[in-house]
């Protein structure tokens, strides 16, 4: 009987301690995504607003005529608002297939037959999306703070606006967590990454449209909690010490964001299993 090679050997080498498999999943996922040139182009494009703002900062620091371009605390809030567009596209590009593709290929029970828990699997998948989203939100915003200090030649701005460091971190974290958990939850519900992408976009646009419709009908913006994006905006205003844009208590908006994140985690915990039992 032709067996091509009988050279199977027992393995006596090292094995990693338990609990590190999520890093393997994250590494493989990141490698797979950065191997796509179109995605690299998207990531570079996502840094275009950073370049524009950096030029503004350079001009305001070096030319009196451009002093009106000098950054304020609000500048960073606006910058992160702008990056919301890239958060949306990166979330769909990276996140839609993260679990859906595994479900399509019946890979979940392969993963979960290895020494890793479903929490580790989710953490590994989440880390992939988290990293890229941080790369288009927190990283350029912090980069801008640094650029400002370099062009101004002092840390005076940062000292006077010390709240910006935690504000940028907190708001970026809220942006990233909301996008990553909700996308992963949707991805765990389907076997088609395209359908997941459409679902995510539909959810974002539909809830925003619903809020705007209610706003038009009732004349008040207290229904902003219906839209995850608008809830996040309201939370962002509070974090950056700005006048809230909607007639909604920031705490309610924060609760809405938290509920979406927690709900997504619950969905993930229920959907990521080694076997689906239909009773």
């Amino acid at each position: 009987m032709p067996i091509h090679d009988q050279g199977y050997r027992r393995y006596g080498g090292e094995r990693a301690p338990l609990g590190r498999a999520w890093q393997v999943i994250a590494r493989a996922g990141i490698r797979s995504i950065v191997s796509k040139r179109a995605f690299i182009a998207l990531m570079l494009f996502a840094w275009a607003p950073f370049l524009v703002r950096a030029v503004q900062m350079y001009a305001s620091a070096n030319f009196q005529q451009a002093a009106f371009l000098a950054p304020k605390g609000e500048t960073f809030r606006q910058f992160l608002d702008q990056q919301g567009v890239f958060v949306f596209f990166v979330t769909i590009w990276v996140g839609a297939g993260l679990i859906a593709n595994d479900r399509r290929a019946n890979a979940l029970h392969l993963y979960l037959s290895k020494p890793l828990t479903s929490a580790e699997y989710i953490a590994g998948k989440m880390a992939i999306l988290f990293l890229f989203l941080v790369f288009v939100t927190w990283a350029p915003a912090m980069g801008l703070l640094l650029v400002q200090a370099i062009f101004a030649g002092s840390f005076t701005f940062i000292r006077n606006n010390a709240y910006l460091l935690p504000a940028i971190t907190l708001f970026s974290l809220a942006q990233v967590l909301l996008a990553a958990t909700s996308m992963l939850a949707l991805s765990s519900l389907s076997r088609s990454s395209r359908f997941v992408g459409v679902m995510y976009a539909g959810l974002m646009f539909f809830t925003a449209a619903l809020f705007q419709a209610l706003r038009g009908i009732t004349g008040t913006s207290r229904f902003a909690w219906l839209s995850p994006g608008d809830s996040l905006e309201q939370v962002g205003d509070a974090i950056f010490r700005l006048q809230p844009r909607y007639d909604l208590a920031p705490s309610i908006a924060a609760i809405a964001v938290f509920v979406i994140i927690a709900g997504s985690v619950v969905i993930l915990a229920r959907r990521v299993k080694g076997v689906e039992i239909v009773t």
Partner: protein
Amino acid sequence: MTAMTGEAFPGPDADVGASCGADSVVQCDDLSVRYGRNWALRDVTTTFRKGAVGLLGPNGAGKSTLIKTLLGFVTPDKGRLRVLGFDVSRSPLEIRSRIGYMPETDSHIPGMNAVSFVAYCGELAGLPPADAMQRAHEVLYYVGLGEARYRNLETYSTGMKQRIKLAQAIVHDPDLLFLDEPTNGMDPKGRDEMLVLIRDLAHNKNVNLILSSHLLPDVEYTCDHVVVVDKGVIAASGPIQALKGTRGRVYELRIKGDQAQFIEVLRREGLDCHDTDEDVIRVFVPTPLDDPAPPLPPAQSGAHGSALGPDSGARQLFQLAARERVQVRHLRPSVPTLEDVFARAVGEA
């Protein structure tokens, strides 16, 4: 390669010795699993010995549920399970680091070629990246995919997908291998090669394995022991040779007349029998306790019926045929097969 680190893999539970014998790899105690209102497994108490054990049963008998419970995918409603000395409910990760699982369904990780996939599975199982890659190449050659290892998995045929599933299950050198219907969808040549691989793993590479299959010849070729599950309970278990060698004789019988009716008559007389695809009835006639003649060894009781003289089993069958006015066209002693064991165990017609 250096020696395996001790801290990463704590030893089995202290009380293992008492409940999981040194020659067993899996111990089920009073195990029950329920899906909704249906019991998939009911009060199952059995032991899977070291070596190659076949898990047999008709469709829906509970084989896959048992494997999924052993893997920790399904939480039992009742009972205790030990795999390699570890309690499944308390140490699932330690168990999974030492087992390999080849699922029944077509499974892969999308967007990878074979060598990346197998190395990735090795890394997930705890192997360092360099070792995982080296072993990925080795096991891919071992399972016969050496030449196709850089092809994307989505382009693989069904047989190749079965092999790649085996490769990912053995890349980290498990102590125990769960194989769920490993020859499903394979052509005869590929099936034979897969069975040779499985047999080689069990008998030459000292990998313990549990082979779940409804294909009796596969189990008979690769395994030494068998556990037969039917309707969620253990119908039979033990070494295949011992089960086949139950005191009695197997006859192949062909008649002229109503075969189904005659089978009913045989069963009413307390004889185990089942028909085959070739209009042949296989009848197991137990040797009476006062019959001094010992059961014939397989070498003598094979297809060479001419070596046998008349015996009480044959006489009994002829008498029954005469009584029922059925003409016997063919009667010869046969070798007991796993099919007979299976048929007796599950009472399958």
